[in-house]
């Protein structure tokens, strides 16, 4: 089927198998490989993107459900003012080790800061509950987000 989808502000018209996953369309068809496949079952959050303003797991969404959707990936966030603050804070606070979960963590952080620009530690842990990291033990990720919220005030 043919679908229209906006990704990081660019409109695409794609001929796709309707059951293919949004994750694979982003990575294989559009070359946006920042979005990762971790578990492929919605448990780990590595494939997180923002679709129509909401954080979602792109491994669980058949592209047929993305007709006319507005999707933002980590590539789109990284280029934004807040994205720059988030990624810099993550770097400064050592929030990434192997880095595989990091794009999903950045997306969950973006979604959290959009609705709550000044989250406490508990709100951060709840906002990122769907993102698993096997390296850091999470404390450094929480530090990165607290830092980003502090430095990003007013954005």
């Amino acid at each position, binding site marked *: 089927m043919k679908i229209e989808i906006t990704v990081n502000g660019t409109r695409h018209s794609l001929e796709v198998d309707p059951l293919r996953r949004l994750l694979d369309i982003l990575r294989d068809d559009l070359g946006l490989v920042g979005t990762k496949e971790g578990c492929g079952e919605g448990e780990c959050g590595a494939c997180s993107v923002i679709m129509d303003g909401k954080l979602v797991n792109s491994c669980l969404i058949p592209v047929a459900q993305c007709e006319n959707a507005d999707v933002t990936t980590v590539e789109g966030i990284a280029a934004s003012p807040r994205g720059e603050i988030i990624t810099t804070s993550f770097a400064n606070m050592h929030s990434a080790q192997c880095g595989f979960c990091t794009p999903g963590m950045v997306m969950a952080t973006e979604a959290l800061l959009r609705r709550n620009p000044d989250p406490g530690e508990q709100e951060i842990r709840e906002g990122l509950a*769907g993102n698993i990291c096997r390296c850091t033990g999470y404390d450094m990720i929480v530090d990165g987000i607290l830092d980003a919220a502090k430095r990003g005030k007013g954005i």
Partner: protein
Amino acid sequence: MTGTQNPKRVLRPLSLHTALLWRKETGALLFAGGTDLMVRHRGYTGTGPRIDRPVLFLDAVEELRGIRVVDPANDAAIIAAPMVEIGAGCVLSDIESHPAVPELLQRSIGLIAAPGLRNRATLAGNICNASPAGDSLPPLFVLDAAVVLESIAGERVVPIGEFITGPGTTILRDDEIVTAIRIPVHAASSASGSARETVYYRKVGTRAANALSKLSGAGIARFGGAGAGADAGAKADAGAGADAVIVDFRLALGAVAPVIVRVPEVEAMVTGRRAAELDPAEIAEAYAPYIRPISDQRSTAAYRKLVALNMVQEFVAKLQEKS
């Protein structure tokens, strides 16, 4: 890839009428949020799900969206008492934050999976999965929820306890679609543990997020009579206290039997008594014959039984607390 080019293999209609027609014509797999279906039909990495039936996407159907309060004053022809109606296309995060939805249901939904998943998964999907461990089910049983089923031939409204018949099985027919969930709302049921109502919910899992439940329990009790009814204004803080008479007692336990356990006989035994005179161990004993869990990868039968009985005692003890 054979068949994937067939334009009749998937449909994502905007209207319920089109959805119902296609459902009757093809018996297609109903696909709302898809958060469970995508895992159940998972293909190899880098490929889509393997589904060997037509797929009917329901997420774009306009009539299935929205949460509304239905009041008999306006809709007397349809219902007798106020209720909140949750469209089958509503995702969990919308329900979690809607002011008209009973707090007990919201509390259970807030503990399902994680925020990203709750942005796609639907309440109707959790019901239709009919897992004994479905987290929304004990609250829905306690709240006397009903499921609205529609086909092009008409509509039927079924109590949730009759809709689910066993693990993974429901009475949904091949030509029907679940269109809404209806929950009667008492005046106090959206307020958290108000003076005259006590709400109980507990989920037991291996971690705080993304854990399927080992078991869960939900309860509601309302008080009236000597302790609170006559002069509730004067002694509002004693409304849920140990001397109040229980006028309504409901408890549901999940993942301890093939279907959710709710026992009218025990509920009747508790109703009409003062909280202070209840023996938590005696109530737990009354529930014991109905708690018949299995051992599986998430827990053991012995653990589930013990914890379920502890939940019964915890709920009763909570009713005896002075607020």
